[in-house]
Structures are given as structure tokens and as C-alpha cells.
């Protein structure tokens, strides 16, 4: 099957100008791809560059060399050179991202945050509403919290709202950065289920999962990011 995401010679270094211009080489010459129904798990120790790679695919970090091809309708678009408005359109319709943390939105209730994410991702508003309720229930977010802004929720509750928000729309590409990090076993199992549903629906997933049992259940391939450790001069 044709890949939905293809990294081709991607390299990334940070130059820390406030720290004597120290250059931090993170990865170099990264090549891998993700096809529909695949879940590529990025492996490697903390600091290896896993999160940076996901952010590069999402257009949140730039890269210094290489291409990130992502299928957008009938076209392959290179995120490395795409215009901002193209990347934002792709985030609406093509690629979803679930980070470890919820960036809290003021004054909006949890259910509305999730439903709004669905509408923004192209769901009809009734479908978005129904699915928001379904996902929050599945993820064991108590119904009495649904109308409240998540600012005061526990870390785990916030994370589950965040997961519901990230998974609600039907985007063909999903990027998951340790979505199970602060969850208990019961909710980890729910996330594994949701990821399996996405794979069956033909979504291409690139994820980071700290938990070995989660990783073993969802991964179709593991890519060890230390193989791309930058060759420091």
C-alpha cells in the first residue's frame, strides 16, 4: 500500500544562541514511512529525538534537510516546505496530533472542547457531539465534569480529554506522543482499543509509547531512533 507519510533524509539540529551558540544535533538522515493501517512506534531512550520527529512531521519544528511527504487528497505535500496555511489546512483535515499535555483553553467545557475538535476536523456537528460523549464515556471522564473547563481537572483527566480531542475526527494520519503516559491500566486499555479502531479504519499512525505492553499491542513496526543519531563531527 502507498504510504501516507514518508520521511526522506530528514535531519534536525538546534542552535542554542543564548548558550554560546551550542549546536545540538538531534537526528540525521531519517528515513521511514507509514502506510494505511500501520502503527509505526518510535523507540529509543529519552532525548533520542522521538518527540522532535513527531513535531517535525506536524510542522511544529522545522527540519534542516530532507522531506516529509504527506498525502493530502490526491497529492503528496512536503511539510518541510509547505506554506503555513497549507500546514494548518492539513492539520484540520489530514493529520492529528496528541501530545502528552493539554494546552488548556479558558472558559470552555470539556465536552465542548472535544466536540469542537470534531467539527474542526470536518465532522457534522451532531456526529461531533455524539462522538464526543461516546469518547469521554469510553475514557471514563465522569459526566459531571463534562460542562466544566479542564483547568481544574487532575492530570489523568486532562490527558483523557486531550486524547478524546485528538482522536475524535477522522483524519488519515495520527501522531501520538506518549498518550498513555499518565493513565492507569484501565484507561491504557481504552487507548489501545481506540488505536486499534483507527488502524482498522486505515489510519497511518506514528506513535511514542513508553509502556511496553501498550507498545507490543499496537506496533506494526518499531523504528529505533538511535539509528538516526546525528554523526557529530
Amino acid at each position, binding site marked *: 500500500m502507498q504510504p501516507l507519510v514518508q520521511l526522506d533524509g530528514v535531519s534536525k539540529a538546534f542552535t542554542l544562541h*543564548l548558550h554560546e551558540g551550542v549546536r545540538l544535533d538531534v537526528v540525521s538522515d531519517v528515513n521511514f514511512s507509514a502506510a494505511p493501517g500501520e502503527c509505526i512506534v518510535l523507540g529509543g531512550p529519552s532525548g533520542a529525538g522521538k518527540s522532535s520527529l513527531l513535531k517535525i512531521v506536524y510542522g*511544529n*519544528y522545522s527540519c534542516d534537510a530532507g522531506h516529509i511527504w504527506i498525502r*493530502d*487528497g490526491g497529492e503528496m505535500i512536503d511539510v518541510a516546505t509547505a506554506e*503555513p*496555511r497549507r*500546514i*494548518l489546512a492539513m492539520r484540520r483535515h489530514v493529520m492529528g496530533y496528541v501530545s502528552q499535555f493539554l494546552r488548556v483553553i479558558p*472558559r470552555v467545557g470539556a465536552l465542548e472542547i472535544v466536540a469542537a475538535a470534531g467539527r474542526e476536523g470536518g465532522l457534522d456537528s451532531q456526529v461531533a457531539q455524539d462522538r464526543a460523549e461516546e469518547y469521554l464515556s469510553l475514557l471514563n471522564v465522569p459526566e459531571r465534569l463534562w460542562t466544566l473547563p479542564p483547568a481544574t481537572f487532575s492530570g489523568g483527566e486532562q490527558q483523557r480529554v486531550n486524547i478524546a480531542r485528538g482522536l475524535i475526527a477522522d483524519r488519515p494520519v495520527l501522531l501520538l506522543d506518549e498518550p498513555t503516559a499518565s493513565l492507569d491500566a484501565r484507561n491504557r486499555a481504552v487507548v489501545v482499543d481506540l488505536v486499534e479502531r483507527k488502524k482498522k479504519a486505515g489510519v497511518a499512525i506514528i506513535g511514542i509509547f513508553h509502556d511496553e505492553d501498550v507498545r507490543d499491542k499496537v506496533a506494526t513496526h518499531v523504528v529505533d531512533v538511535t539509528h538516526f543519531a546525528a554523526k557529530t563531527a
Partner: protein
Amino acid sequence: MLNDLPDAPLLSVRDLTRYYGERIGCADVSFDLYEGEVLAVVGESGSGKSTLLSLLATELEASAGSIRYRMRDGIARDLATLTEAERRLLLRTDWGFVRQDSTQGLRMSVSAGGNIGERLMAVGARHYGNIRGTSLDWLGRVEIDRGRIDDIPKAFSGGMRQRLQIARNLVTHPRLVFMDEPTSGLDVSVQARLLDLIRGLVSELGLAVIIVTHDLSVARLLSHRIMVMKGGRVIEAGLTDRVLDDPHQPYTQLLVSSVLAA
């Protein structure tokens, strides 16, 4: 999905430059802005943000460079070639300008309803009842008690004045809105509410916005793209979260880190 993006920019700016005598106001600024895009211009005081905004709004004459704007008929015009009448019509109907100092953006001795109605009359509204009805509707949309329609802005708090400016500017359904530090000087909670309001209206109306701010959290919340200015020049530009999370230029890294430290 390509076809959901318009391919002709609304505003096309090339090498825009303004000197004040020997001193650079802003220099060599180039960018395109598309419908529905919110562009934040950030940088320290004196970096040229207000000069750029005044040039774009044709309040200031450029020393060099060009600004092309796509009119409602679809034809892009060089703004320097507009007649005075055409320029005024643009300012009063197709554009809005929300100013940091509300006394410059409002008529302080005219009622709230009159401030909104005045812009409507500029686009040809004549029926008193309709104008009042639309003004009332807009007061509601910007969360000002409709009972205040006959009060003058002098009697309003800072946050209410800014909301009234927004109503006055948006009532004519402009396509492009300039904002110069619209939330600065307000209490944090008032600011948060105003930002929510602006964010909602901008996406609902599909406005193109150029917002000048020294506050990176405002830029993060409202904008799609950022241009960072220093010494009158654009030193870094791109997708808002890319510029803020992976800043490349030394100055941008400094700006971002001072926010983190604050």
C-alpha cells in the same frame, strides 16, 4: 483538499520601506496575506510594528515598495494608485482598525449605538430602526449590555471600550482588520475575555487580520502566522507555533525565553 485554499492573496506586500528622515521606520517588508489568515507582528518597542501597520492602512506614505489589495471585484489594486475617495471607502467599509488607544478608535462623545451606526451609514444604511437594531445586535455579540446603547464610551471601562471598537469595526463585515495592541493595558482577566471574543469572531467571520502585539501569548492564541521584527526589519517569519516552539534567530530565541522566564 488543495481547492479549499484560495490561490490569490488578499494583500500582497513587497519591499515595503519607510524612513523618518535618516531613521528606518521599517524596511524591505514582504509578505502575502490570504483570506481568513491572522498574522501577528511581534517585536520590541521601536521595532517598526506600528509603522508597518500605518503603511498597510495607507495612513502613512511609503518611501519604497508596494502594497496590492484584492478588491471585492477580485481585481488586485496597487494601493498607492487609489483615488482619495476609493481609499476612504476601503477604510470605512472593507477594512477595520482596532486601536490600542480607544479614544483614537471611537468617537468618545457619541453614544455606543452611534459609534456602531456611523460605520453602517458609511456603507449606505439609512433606515433608523434597522441601524439601531443592528447596533443592538452587535452590542450583544461583543457582550456589552444592550441597555448601554445610549451611553457614551467615556462612561465605559477599558475592556468595554475595546469591545465597542470591535463592534464598530466588524459591523460592516470588513475583509481585513488591523489591530494595534488591542489588549494591552487591560487587566489579565479582562484581556482573556477580550481575546476569546476576538478569536471567536475572527474565525466565525473568516476575517483576515494583521495584529501588532508585543505579547507572544496573544500571538500564540490568535494568530496563524508570525513575523518577528527587529530594527525595522522582519528577521523571522512562519507558522506561529513553529516560530514560538522552534525559534531560529538569536533575537527570537531571546523573546521566547523571556516569556518563559516571566
